Structures are given as structure tokens and as C-alpha cells.
């Protein structure tokens, strides 16, 4: 058995182990891969409600009169559009336009912004934030002071509102957030997620994480591991840092141009990577991150597989791939030359010495049904 003693634990670690979850090393954290099984957990989130321990993610707070200026310098999106209680998805870039991380920025108050970052990137991001905006405001890493529980699925919002005794939570808009009390704990419920379903992510003090988790389980939520988290986000075609995006990719080629607000530079809010991204935008991308569906049955493309041309030369790379439990078949995400990025384009994937066919698909593979009016 592998030595897991050096791995970091979330406040819910012992609860996962006690419940019999299969645990794995995920970026230095000892995390649940699955409980009941990936397919059953995937289905629970698509049809009912599931809960995820995402406490390993990082929280970095920007406070003081220069908080907005600091955030604006760091992110590609336009934080000036935020109001109190609103959040936005963004990329954070290096000066060359490569991606440091993808994050969500929350405005708690005019002089208090919080950026939630990927677990494996906490130290790197905090150093990047300090380097490029440390002169503008106080920047504090609160990653160890905050537990985060995602509640996702068609029944997620109803469950959280019921347990919190708060109909007001049902009025929180997409990418909005509001405080509440659940299981005796003060929480902040943000209407965000990483599954393609509606729901909340709950910010909780570590000391109360188990109480909130247990209340959600008692309320009927299924615990979900990292395995189903990956199949759910893949069906929704949401990027995973380290797979689909990293320091060698830029947000424009990754389909994240909608969070790159080059126009804010003209208003004096230049940002790290802004000049490089303006140049890339002007000359155009050479490759594009696209979704694909495997069209030869029984094949599953995995990250790292090659996209090859008719002569077998490598022209692209699969960055995410796997089965799509809800929509059926196997899907994936890949970088391909721009000329092969149109929906319907046939691709050839080469993996472990054999090749099979795939087809470029537009947009998310899975869209949640509109709720009944």
C-alpha cells in the first residue's frame, strides 16, 4: 500500500474514509475517487443531487482600497462589472498569455474580493498574485481556513434552501452568492459549479464542514468522488487546468475568449498577459480547443492521445477524454489546427499503436434540461 501519510487532508477526510470511499492521491491531497461507483454517482448528480468535497481548492483574499485594481491587473475578465454578491469566471495569465490558472472571482464588498483557485495551483497562484499585484493591496491566502462543499444536481438548490430554511437562497442568480445558516454553521452559498448542473458551492468554516456534509447526506444527497466529477465536467465541456489548459496554452485558443476583456486595457485596466493576448487576437490562433465524439464504437480516447493526419503525422493532442455516461458513447477535448476545428470535421485519433475515428462537436456534449416553468 502506498504511503499516504505525507498527503494533505481536507476537514472532511476522515468522513470520506469512514464511509468507505476509495481514496487517491490527487495533486498532493488524499481525496475520494469514488464511493458507490463513478457511473452511479454521475447519474445521481444528473437526476437528483450529489455533494462533492472540494475543500482542497484555494481561497485568496484581496482587501483594501486597491483590491479592485489588484484583481483587474491579475485577471483577463473585467472585475469592474461585479457588484457585491456577484462572481465571475476568469483566466489568470502570464505575461506571454499562457494560463496560470482558471478561477472564480467573488466580490464580497467594494474592498474585498476573493479568488478561488485550483488546489494544485495554490502556491504558484499566490506567488504570481504577490509578484504582479502585491503592491496594490493586501493579499492573503485563506486556503486552510475555508472548506468548500459543492451541491449539484436538479434537486441541489431545493435541498440547500430547505436545510437552510431560506427561500431567499432560491432567488440567488447564476454566479451570485449569499450568506445563510445550515446545520448551525454560517455558510456562503454561491450558485456556481463544475458539473453542467444547477446547484451551489458552499463556503464553510473547517470546524463546521462535517456538520454541513452530514446534514446534506441526511437530506438525501449522494456523496460524489473525483471520478464522477471528471465525467460530469467533461460532458459539460468545462476545462480542467493541467489537462486542457496550462502555461503553454492561451485562453483565446482554449475557447475562453469570452473571459478575455481586451477593452478594459483601453480604460487603464491593463492586465498581466494583456499585450500578448491582444497580439494573438490580432494575428489569430493557429490551434483551437475543440470537443469531439468518438465515432468508432468501443473506443475511448484518453488524455495524451495524438490527433494524426492521413499520413500519420501528429497534428494535435487529446487533453481530456472518456466515456460520456449521460449522452452515451465516448467524448473528449483536443487541440487541433484551426483548419480542422469546424463542427463535423473528421479527426483520426492515434492511441497506443492503433487509430480510430472521431468527429468535432460544437458546444457542450450535455446540456441540462430547462426546468419546468
Amino acid at each position, binding site marked *: 500500500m502506498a504511503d499516504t501519510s505525507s498527503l494533505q487532508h481536507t476537514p472532511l477526510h476522515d468522513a470520506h474514509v469512514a464511509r468507505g470511499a476509495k481514496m487517491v492521491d490527487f495533486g498532493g491531497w488524499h481525496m475520494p475517487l469514488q464511493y458507490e461507483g463513478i457511473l452511479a454517482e454521475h447519474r445521481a448528480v444528473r437526476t437528483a443531487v450529489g455533494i462533492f468535497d472540494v475543500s482542497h481548492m484555494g481561497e485568496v483574499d484581496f482587501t483594501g482600497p486597491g483590491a479592485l485594481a489588484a484583481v483587474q491587473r491579475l485577471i483577463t475578465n473585467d472585475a469592474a462589472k461585479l457588484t457585491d454578491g456577484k462572481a*465571475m*469566471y476568469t483566466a489568470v495569465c502570464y505575461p506571454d498569455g499562457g494560463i496560470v490558472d482558471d478561477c472564480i472571482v467573488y466580490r464580497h464588498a467594494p474592498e474585498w474580493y476573493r479568488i478561488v483557485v485550483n488546489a494544485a495551483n495554490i502556491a504558484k497562484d499566490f506567488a504570481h498574485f504577490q509578484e504582479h499585484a502585491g503592491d496594490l493591496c493586501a493579499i492573503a491566502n485563506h486556503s486552510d481556513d475555508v472548506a468548500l462543499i459543492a451541491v449539484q444536481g436538479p434537486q441541489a438548490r431545493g435541498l440547500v434552501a430547505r436545510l437552510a430554511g431560506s427561500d431567499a437562497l432560491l432567488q440567488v442568480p*447564476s*454566479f451570485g452568492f449569499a450568506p445563510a445558516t445550515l446545520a448551525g454553521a454560517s455558510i456562503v452559498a454561491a450558485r456556481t459549479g463544475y458539473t453542467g448542473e444547477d446547484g451551489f458551492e458552499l463556503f464553510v468554516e473547517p470546524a463546521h464542514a462535517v456538520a454541513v456534509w452530514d446534514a446534506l447526506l441526511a437530506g438525501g444527497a449522494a456523496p460524489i468522488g473525483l471520478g464522477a466529477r471528471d465525467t460530469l465536467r467533461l460532458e459539460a465541456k468545462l476545462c480542467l487546468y493541467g489537462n486542457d489548459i496550462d502555461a503553454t496554452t492561451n485562453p*483565446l*485558443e482554449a*475557447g475562453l*475568449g*469570452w*473571459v*478575455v476583456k*481586451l*477593452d478594459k486595457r483601453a480604460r487603464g485596466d491593463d492586465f498581466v498577459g494583456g499585450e500578448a493576448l491582444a497580439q494573438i487576437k490580432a494575428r489569430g*490562433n493557429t490551434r*483551437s480547443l475543440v470537443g469531439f465524439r468518438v465515432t468508432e464504437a468501443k473506443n475511448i480516447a484518453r488524455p495524451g492521445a495524438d490527433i494524426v493526419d492521413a499520413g500519420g503525422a501528429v497534428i494535435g493532442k487529446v487533453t481530456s477524454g472518456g466515456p460520456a455516461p449521460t449522452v452515451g458513447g465516448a467524448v473528449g477535448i483536443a487541440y487541433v489546427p*484551426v483548419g480542422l*476545428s*469546424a*463542427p463535423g470535421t473528421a479527426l483520426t485519433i492515434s492511441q497506443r499503436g492503433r487509430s480510430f475515428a472521431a468527429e468535432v462537436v*460544437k*458546444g*457542450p456534449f450535455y*446540456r441540462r434540461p430547462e426546468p419546468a416553468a
Partner: protein
Amino acid sequence: MSNIPSNLRYTKEHEWARLEADGTVVVGITDHAVNTLGDITLVTLPTVGTRLTADQEFGTIDSVKAVSELFAPIDGEVIEVNTELDASPEDVNTDCYGDGWMVRIRPTDAGALDRLLTAEQYEALIKE
């Protein structure tokens, strides 16, 4: 304030239509629509050759707020699609009357455009 160019025609569903010198009509969505939708993440358009019927849905726009339908301003055939929007849907946000155009139509009836709203009429509509 919304930008409502006077040389375009408009629909109640917030599309604009522009008559080109060759008789074709270019279609997009208005600045007012863009401001209402917020950041646009995906534009789904018909293929070249598709026949459109006025007031019928011909595509969808995903934004951070919602999925919205696109409605054809006039009858006609799609003869060109802005495929740049596949990779850069944000062009609709940054330049809805320029780089953010969506389809070019060959109208069935050359006079159909005259029955759409003028800039003044559209401005009055969105002030309501």
C-alpha cells in the same frame, strides 16, 4: 445607451439586418440584446443552404445568463455563416454590428426588409 445604427433594420426580437450592395442581407443581434445577454459563450448557427422563414428560430446564443433563440428577420436562404464565431463568440460582445455578424441571407423577397423596424422604431421599442 444602446448603439442603434440608422442604416440598419431591426426586429422586435433584437436582430438587426443590413442590405448589402449585392442584394444580400447580413444579420446579427443588437447592442441592446448583447447588453441584456452578458458574456456570450457559444453561438449556434444554421449551415449554408438552410432556408429561413421570417420570425422562425434559426439558431441559439448561449451566454453566462441564459440560452436565447435567434429569429430570422425575413424569408431567405443562408449563403454565408460567420464561422469565426465558433472559436470567438466574444466577437458578438465586442463588435455586434461588425465582426459579430452571424449569417448572410439571399432574401426571397427583395422588399421584405422594408417591413422591418427602422432605427427610430426600434429605439422606441426598447425604451418601453
